């Protein structure tokens, strides 16, 4: 992409104006520096500087498309290594979402054994499904940690080479949220220790409210650390060997998500057959129906996260041959 050094002095001044215009906030900074001024001129000519809502929507989608192209997630203009890295980062983000939603499923499926009839056959399938789910989740977590550890030396070199300023804001936000989450966790644990199981499971509204705040903090903390990882990994230049390993690990994590989604579906089917009453845990559930609204939403979000991870792996696979040639 061309840089803006070719413009005249006057147009350089205008370009700064275009680059900082809030209407183009969805576009990446380098794109705004190159095309922002022209696009603002077009908006002025076509709409007198006040484009309708539909045009704003078009600018937002156009900006996001440019960001996806620049990061290597779509198109063929970015280097192949960027495409592989973008694919792996998509898998990481999808895994974070999967874990967050998975906690909801873990809570939902608690004590499911007690709801099943005593015959051996009724326990076998849901037990096996949940065991597979938990085992694969453990393996996938190890893969995520391995991927993070593998990136640490390159990341430390990047920080030493004055890269700290580019991730400082993200890092401090994540750290502050982690501190807050810890500060809420300690009193919550102490309080929970003095409550009965009934009070902990909806009997005490104040505890329920604090639990929800704590859960939200944990979710936000996880998301913020993922943002730190993505922001850092986007800027760091990995060696081909590390990138290759990260891509393979990402594919393994995506495969784990597919297996976990399958195991969840099998567990749901087995529970619907032998203990449908257990599946109406949320207030939205109809008695005797396996279609509980909370479970449907949870499984649907798990499927979306899995689909997103698969998209990331497909991206890796598509640009892989170019990286090998390059």
């Amino acid at each position, binding site marked *: 992409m061309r840089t803006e050094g070719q413009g*005249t002095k006057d147009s350089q001044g205008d370009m700064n104006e275009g680059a900082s215009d809030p209407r183009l906030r969805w576009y990446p900074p380098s794109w705004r520096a190159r095309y922002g001024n022209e696009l603002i001129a077009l908006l002025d000519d076509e709409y007198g500087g006040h484009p309708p809502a539909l045009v704003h929507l078009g600018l937002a989608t156009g900006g996001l498309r440019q960001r996806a192209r620049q990061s290597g997630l779509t198109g063929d203009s970015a280097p192949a290594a960027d495409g592989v890295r973008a694919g792996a980062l998509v898998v990481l983000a999808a895994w974070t979402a999967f874990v967050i939603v998975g906690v909801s499923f873990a809570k939902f499926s608690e004590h499911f054994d007690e709801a099943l009839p005593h015959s051996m056959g009724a326990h076998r399938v849901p037990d096996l499904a949940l065991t597979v789910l938990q085992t694969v989740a453990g393996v996938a977590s190890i893969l995520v940690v391995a991927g993070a550890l593998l990136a640490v030396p390159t990341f430390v070199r990047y920080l030493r080479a004055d890269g700290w300023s580019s991730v400082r804001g993200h890092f401090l936000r994540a750290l502050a949220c982690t501190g807050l989450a810890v500060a809420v966790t300690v009193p919550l644990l102490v309080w929970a220790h003095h409550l009965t199981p009934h009070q902990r499971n909806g009997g005490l509204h104040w505890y329920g409210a604090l639990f929800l705040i704590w859960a939200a903090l944990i979710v936000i903390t996880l998301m913020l650390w993922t943002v730190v990882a993505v922001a850092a990994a986007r800027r760091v230049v990995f060696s081909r060997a590390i990138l290759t390993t990260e891509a393979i690990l990402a594919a393994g994590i995506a495969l784990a998500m597919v297996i976990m989604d399958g195991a969840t579906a099998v567990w749901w089917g087995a529970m619907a057959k032998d203990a449908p009453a257990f599946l109406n845990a949320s207030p939205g559930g109809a008695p005797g129906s396996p279609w509980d609204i909370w479970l449907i939403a949870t499984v649907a979000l798990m499927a979306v996260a899995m689909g997103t991870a698969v998209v990331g792996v497909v991206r890796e696979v598509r640009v892989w041959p170019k990286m090998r040639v390059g």
Partner: protein
Amino acid sequence: MSLAGGAKHGHALLKDIEEFAGVKLGPGALYGAITRLEERGLIEPLASDDRRRPYQITAAGSQALADSVAQMRELVRLGQARLKMVRTARPRLA
């Protein structure tokens, strides 16, 4: 195709495309296309003191357009031949 008729800036491109193709592109879509075409070397910007930077088609762009037009011409030829066949076989459709 619009730039084959001469160099134009964004606003002129929108008007021209609307006139010859009957399609009103949004500014976001137009600049998405400009970005891709410039990256592929099919169009290039011209120097300008104005905010409205004009673009012109390159030799590679001209060749790509010629290839596309040839493909479309072949499609039109095939379509006409097939229409002739169907009208011969079923005169009531003519």
